[in-house]
Each structure stands twice: as C-alpha cells, then as structure tokens.
C-alpha cells in the first residue's frame, strides 16, 4: 500500500543548539517524521508539545497535531492512528498519565509501537510539580519499554531509539521515555541535532505489515479471546519483551556507528567503577549530584562509583547482575516509593535484589528513598547515602532489611 514517498527537507549538517529535554524530544519528533501526535496540557511533559507546536507553526515539520480533550483521548487517538500505519508520539505526566491508564494498558496489549514520554511528576494529592518516578513505574508490568534519560542529548537519542526498537517487528511494543520533571524537561543543555540523512539511515519507515488496519487488509483486531486464548497471547508479549533486549543492543550498536554516542552499553552507564568497592545505583538525573559526590569522595580516598540504569524495561538482568556482583555493596537510590513492599523498599531496590538473589556472589544491597516530589539530592544527602552504603559494605548493616529515607525533616 505504500506508494511514492515525498522527499523530505533535509538538514545536511549536524548542528548544536541549546535545548531543554522537551525541546530535544521535539527535534527527535521532527527527524523521525512523526505522522500523528496528540497533546493535552499537564506540567512538565507538555513542554515537548509546546516545542513541537512551534516547529509545526514555523513549517519545520508536517504532523497531524491533535489537541485532545484529556489524556485518555490523547492516548486512544495515537493508538488508533498507529493501527492504520502512522508513526505516533504522545506523552503525559503524573496524574495525567494515570488518567490515560486504560488506554496505556491496551496499547501494550495491542502490540502497537506508540512512543511516549512521561515527564516524571509526583502524583497528587497533595500536589507537587517535581519529579518522582511512580507515574512511569506504574506501567512496568504491562509491556511498555521504559528507558530513562539523564540529559537532553540522551532524551533526543533515546527517542530515536524508541521508534527504531518499538517498531521492530520482533518487538512491536510501546515505549515510554522517562524524563525527570523540571531537572530534565525544563533544563537547557547543549544538544547535538543529527542530520536528517543520518537519522534516515538509522530509522526505517514504519511498516505494520499484515497487521495494518485497512480495507485492503480487512482484519478484525482485538476480539474477545477469553480464557481460550489469552494466555498464549500474553506469552507472545513476554517473548517480544525478551527479544527487545537483543533489538536494543543492535540498535545501540548502529546508533554508536552513525552518531558516535551512546556509551559502552545501552543498558548501563558506569562512572568510576573500575576499582570501586561500592557503587550507587539509580536512574535519571540523580546521577548528576551523585557524580559530584563521587569526585569529592574519591579525593578523600574512597573507592566509590555509580551505575546508572538506562532501561528499566526490559530489565537487562544478566548484565546488571554481572556488573553489580563486582562490588561489595550497592546503594540503590529510588526516586519512587512502593508502600508495603518487601523491606519497605523502593521499586528499583526490590528489582535489583530480586535479580541478584540467585547469584552465588552477591553484594550487600541497601535501599534509599530520596529526592521525592522534585526535592534536590544535595551533597549532605549524598554523603549520608555514601556513609550508609559504606557501613553496609563493612558489615555494619545487615543486607536487605534496611531502607532509608534520605533528607526527611524530623
């Protein structure tokens, strides 16, 4: 059904510009030739919709830009646009993400590669604008791929990766990129904007194949399957998620070759870990204050490093276990909570502990809840995390039965 494709306006030279995380994502939308996007206001994700609207108004890209009547409609609109073969983009934050929850769940069930950002924001009530990862993490079991960006550059790069991986026929799952509210969505950084030619080499056109909803392909999508077939279909989703790890590695290798960025591994970003005895483990922008702390602590002679997780789903278990088993202790910093969970730990803490359980040699794992609601992780807090992790490494704290809330007023 695909016929002549119109040549697109190309930017032949890689440029650098000062951009927020949201603006960087908007550039990725332009470069990916997105067909349909749906907007609805909620801070802080909506910066990306404002940036995209400007690009459209100024003739920089051709996208159907639909301002929806709520997040549920937003996600339903792109889901259905995707089913007829459109490359799509959508996003939300905090309680807005939850308002769309039904549509978010079925999008993964339908295996439609919708790409979204979740501008991570604390859930009401009480109200807070700042970052907290519980919005993204709420969809962790449903079949969404969940990468987390640390910088505006990584936001742009992960967005291009998201369409490439999500639309790959072996995967065909939606992707939600986590962007820490304010710290990343609204902080300006220097961002390299790749050329259209390079992006076109990296990102093939979207092709749903025989799953396209079109009168020439009159299929019935998502009938009632009941107990008769649902389990087989759930297992197919599981297999797709398993394949995603390989597809991400392939895409990452191609990305590095074409753009020269992305680091050693698509899943982990390690900092000063070569000789480290213990490390901090977390995702998103909290890596920045922790790196500052590590440099300071290294000057004092402490062998400490950072392992930053870049994809929460799929959870690259083997690689994460291989990496973390090298250390005496791991301090997992959760910018989220999971009330009533084992050891009252955060989500990441329990994922890491579960991954390490079957290992003969495993580090002590200590849990930290920090930076909720957009609270800055300041150096005294980093120091406290360090001291508690160090104490655990030397056996002063028992592994696993400890979760510490950091920087909380008495």
């Amino acid at each position, binding site marked *: 059904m695909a016929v002549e494709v*119109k040549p697109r306006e190309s930017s032949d030279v890689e440029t650098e510009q000062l951009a927020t995380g949201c603006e960087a994502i908007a550039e990725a939308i332009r470069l990916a030739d997105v067909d349909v996007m749906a907007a609805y206001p909620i801070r802080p994700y909506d910066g990306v919709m404002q940036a995209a609207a400007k690009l459209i108004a100024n003739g920089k890209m051709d996208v159907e830009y639909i301002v929806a009547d709520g997040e549920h409609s937003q996600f339903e609109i792109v889901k259905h646009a995707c089913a007829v073969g459109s490359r799509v983009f959508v996003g939300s934050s905090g309680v807005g993400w939850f308002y769309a929850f039904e549509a978010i769940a079925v999008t993964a069930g339908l295996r439609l590669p919708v790409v979204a950002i979740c501008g991570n924001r604390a859930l009401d009530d009480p109200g807070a604008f700042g970052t907290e990862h519980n919005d993204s993490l709420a969809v962790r079991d449903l079949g969404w791929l969940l990468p987390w960006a640390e910088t505006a550059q990584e936001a742009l790069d992960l967005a291009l990766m998201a369409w490439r991986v999500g639309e790959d026929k072996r995967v065909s799952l939606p992707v939600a990129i986590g962007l820490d509210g304010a710290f990343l969505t609204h902080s300006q950084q220097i961002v390299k904007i790749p050329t259209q030619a390079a992006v076109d080499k990296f990102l093939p056109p979207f092709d749903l194949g025989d799953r396209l909803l079109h009168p020439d392909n*009159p299929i019935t999508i998502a*009938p009632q399957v009941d107990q008769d077939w649902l389990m087989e279909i759930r297992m197919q989703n599981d297999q797709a998620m398993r394949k995603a790890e390989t597809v991400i590695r392939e895409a990452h290798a191609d990305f590095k070759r074409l753009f020269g960025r992305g680091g050693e591994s698509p899943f982990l970003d390690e900092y000063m870990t070569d000789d480290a005895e213990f490390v901090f483990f977390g995702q998103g922008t909290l890596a920045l204050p922790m790196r500052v702390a590590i440099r300071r602590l290294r000057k004092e002679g402490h062998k400490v490093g950072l392992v930053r997780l870049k994809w929460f789903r799929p959870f690259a278990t083997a690689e994460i276990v291989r990496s973390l088993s090298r250390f005496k202790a791991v301090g997992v910093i959760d910018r989220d909570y999971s009330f009533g969970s084992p050891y009252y730990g955060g989500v990441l803490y329990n994922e890491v502990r579960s991954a390490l359980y079957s290992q003969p040699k495993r580090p002590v794992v200590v849990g930290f809840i920090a930076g909720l609601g957009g609270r800055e992780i300041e150096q005294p807090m980093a120091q406290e995390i360090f001291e508690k992790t160090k104490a655990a490494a030397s056996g002063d704290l028992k592994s696993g039965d400890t979760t510490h809330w950091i920087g909380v007023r008495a």
Partner: protein
Amino acid sequence: MAVETTTLPQIKGVKDVPYDELFVSGHRTCQGCESALVMRHMVKAAGPRTIVLGSTGCMYVANTTYYTTPWVVPWMHTQLGASGSAALGTAAGLKVLMRKGKLKNEKINVIAFCGDGGGADMGIGAISATLTHKEYNCLVLLYDNESYANTDIQLSSQTPYGAVTTFSPSGSKKRLMHTRWKKNVPGMLAAGHPESRYIAAGCAAYAVDLMNKIRKALELGGPTFVHTLDPCPKGWDYHPQYSQELGHLAVECGIWPLYEVIDGVCNLTGPTRQIAEGRKKRKPVYEYLKRQGRFAHFIDEDVEHFQAEVDKMWTEWLVPGVIPFTVPAKDQAILKIDKKALHEQKSA
C-alpha cells in the same frame, strides 16, 4: 493524484438497497437484537471501503469472539469511552498518511460505534471533542438499547424514566428506583457542535431512513454523529419477534423523534414528520409501555407522568424532541421565534 471517491447516493426504497452484506454470520447476538441490525444496515450503507471501530459493549462482546468475526470490513476494538477518539485517531492517521504519500489517496469511511453506556455516559466528552475537529472525516454511531445490556442490564443515562434494570429493580418500598429523564444526546450534540455537518436520530425499524442517514453523514464529511434507538428483547423484556414493532411504536408514540440536522438545518423525518405536520396522530405512550416487562410495575400515575413529559416535548420544546427549552412569549418576537405548530405553519 486525484482522490478516488466512492459516492454513496441516497437509497430510494427497499429495492434500491445494496445486496452485498458486510456484516454477516459469525456473531452471537440475541434473537431480535436491533443493534445487530443497526450494524448490518450501517456497514451495508457505507460499503466495503470502510474501517469500523467498535467500543466495548454488546456489539463488541457478542459480535467478535475470537476465531469468528461477522465483519467483512476491517474492524478494531476500542475502549468503552473511546469511540470519539478512535474515530478521530483513525481519520487523522489516514489523512496524514495519504497527504505524505505513505498510503494510496482514496476515500475510506471511518465509523466508530458505541453503545449508550459507552457513548452517552462514559464517552460523551470524547465524542463532543471529535465533533469539533472539522478537518477529519469520521462518523460516530451510538446504538442505544437503553441499558448496559452486555453486563446484565444496568441503567444508563439513556434508560427511560421508571424502567426496571438490575440497578433499578422495583421493590416493596420503592416502586421506581430510576427517576431520571433520558438524556437528549443527539439534540445536545447538534446544539453544541455547530461545525458538525450532520447529526441525526434514527431507528432500525425505519431501515431505509437509517441507511440514508448513514450515507448522508459519510458523504457530507467532517465529524458526524448518528444515534439509533434499538429495542432490546433481553433488556426491555418482550418477545424477540416484536423488536421492529417496538421501534415503530417508539417513533409513533413520539417518544423517539426521527430527525437530522444538516449544516444547522433541522429536518424531521419519517413518521415524526407526519406527526408534526398533523398528518398522523401521535399514539398514547401506554401503547408502547404496556408491551415491555421493564414497565410492568407502572401504575396509572407513572404512565401519566411519562405521557406528560412526552407531551411537553411536543408542545413546549422549541423544536420537538430536539431543543428542550422554551422561550417566554414576550421574547418570542424579539428572538424571531414562531412557536406555531409545524402543521399550522404549513397550512398558513
């Protein structure tokens, strides 16, 4: 490249109805299900170059059980409250892909259907939003069987006054659990969405009228809306052989007026027009109520209340069955409103 257009001319009579069936066997709707008939008429009128989106409800669960499908045209499920968004997203996707040359440029009809629960209750916001996006061609069809009939007959905002449902049983202390008057959905949508080119109320008992309404909606383009009243043997409690008769009675008693609003002009159609013109006498609502078990607990005062509300709709509403408010006599002149009955205007 020129757009290939399918033209959908108006059907002149039963003999002019297309022979091809695009909603066929492979479903398990109840005997006498008028909503299934609406599906059949809907897609027959629209033709094969059509994509249908179906929101959760009877016409999802009873129609599409895996391994079978009655749909000859492409069909996709959408969520209970998402028919408006499904129509919009599908239409927007097709439009942009054709504009960018990624898909062959041709006319493809987009129809999203919903029940009264999905459309009049949960999905009304999304339908309303869709009807304001005039650049996208899509039709939302609301098949109204006056309850959540798929989930055990619970009352919806479309359940008529006093009717028994599993959420409104008639008991020894409370004869009537449900005392809200039916929400006026097509009238509300017509009044609130002046840029929608076509909004209509139909009934499968008047099949040609309904098919022509579907065709007009698709031909005029932009976002459009059709609401059908579908007698439901299970929910209304009557023998399945009387479905068509009850559809006729709903219209003849003046309870369900048939009309269409084309580019802001309201036309009454079928027997509703004949009643308004005075060529046909409106039947008492008792003729309709007495045929259904869901009204079996009604006593005289309930019937009288029901009749009075329907009478008010015909004698006091600005447009019978469409625009519910009245205008004080002193303001009718300044607002240029002629409140004479339609048949009086005609003879004048």
